[in-house]
């Protein structure tokens, strides 16, 4: 049994008739064609599918697409402006905070929300913020450095 669903993703509205059991992660990838969001464990542990729902980080594999009807979603595709990387993305690249990149979109969407709430985090808070996403390549040390770097660049310069 299908239902009409309309979700605003990165400022654009996507309409489709979907089954109630369709996961938000699959709506994002298959209906909207935004394949930056990755699907890893599909049970809320790995964090690869993390997106923002009305600015809050959520696991898109633990939501039904019908639950996002009328809501606003941001995915990793919303970060860069054209060819210009978001400060978090640039910092990840410079600090070598990724290798294969599969987990990176989830980390970025978690961290983008985290830095909005904590613009001046210490290392302990950053480690806690990283804990909800898994990376199997790099380990997390370079990511801590990347977040410190991005936080510094994102803060307004002192007058």
């Amino acid at each position, binding site marked *: *049994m299908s*239902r009409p669903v309309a979700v605003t993703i990165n400022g654009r509205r996507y309409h489709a008739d979907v*089954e*109630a*059991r369709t*996961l938000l992660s*699959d709506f994002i990838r298959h209906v909207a064609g935004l394949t930056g969001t990755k699907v890893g464990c*599909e*049970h*809320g542990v790995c*964090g690869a599918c*993390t997106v923002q*729902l009305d600015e*809050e*980080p*959520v*696991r898109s*594999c*633990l*939501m*039904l697409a*019908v*639950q996002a009807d009328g809501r606003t979603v941001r995915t990793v595709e919303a970060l860069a402006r054209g060819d210009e990387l978001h400060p978090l993305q640039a910092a990840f690249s410079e600090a070598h905070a990724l290798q294969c990149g599969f987990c990176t979109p989830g980390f970025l969407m*978690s961290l983008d*929300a*985290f830095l909005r709430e904590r613009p001046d985090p210490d290392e302990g808070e950053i480690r*806690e*913020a990283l*804990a*909800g996403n898994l990376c199997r390549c790099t380990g997390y040390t370079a990511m801590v450095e990347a977040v410190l770097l991005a936080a510094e660049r994102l803060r307004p310069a002192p007058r």
Partner: protein
Amino acid sequence: MKPAPFAYDDPRGLDETLDLLARHGEDAKVLAGGQSLLPLLNFRLARPTRLVDVNRVDELAYLRRRGGNLRIGALTRAATLERSPLVAAEWPLLREAVRLVGHPQIRSRGTVGGSVAHADPAAELPAVLAALESRFHLRSRRGGRTLGPEELFVTHLTTALAPDELLVEIEVPPLPSRAGTAFVEYARVHGDFALGGAAAVVVLGEDGTCERAVVTLVAAAPTPVRAREAEEALAGGSLTEEGIRAAADLAAAEVDVPEAERPYRRALVSELTRRALERAVTRAREAA
């Protein structure tokens, strides 16, 4: 994996929700924050034929104080509880525990009522709500009833909720002055399910002795169990280091897990209870 097909309702109000549960209760599963149910559906470990999604029942999402009690609407998100200045100031035990529930990406969706109704003995919120002697308000088309924690939590993942009943509100009484609380848990990885945990509430008398204490345990038994013998041993005493250690050992006797795990869990529960009590006593003395 993906969930098996199911019929789906997303009622907009409590009345409509109770009608749906009265009609379909036996076949329906209530979907709240989904942070435990969706993994079960994705793995097809649960295959309900119908979901009643309460996420659009806005009247169940609130956090307010009335008559001195904290009233938590069942649909209140864990993140809302975590960010509430009222909770931080008046019920710090809730804040201390909710920060250990999963990760921010889970707390943004997971609900207080969902955690209670799911009744995972390793969950933090049922244990701290039990330690605060909360009352759980249930509603159905047949009427309403209110249960205490020991009536509500039956065993692993099982509550006294009937198929047509919905948990609508959790009511938390205020802490007396001269009270201190603490929650301590151990998990192998931050944000993982706890291997053990303890919540402690200590109320001091005017002379500084223990007027009463409440201790509840996480992941120690099929329910968020109360360590009554430990509580009785503490009441009336002067809360010495040895007294707290002895009470912690009594709490460890409540551990009810398979035999192979028992010695480790007992040692863990004893140590975590000791730490929770020490912290609660320090905080009670600061408050007094």
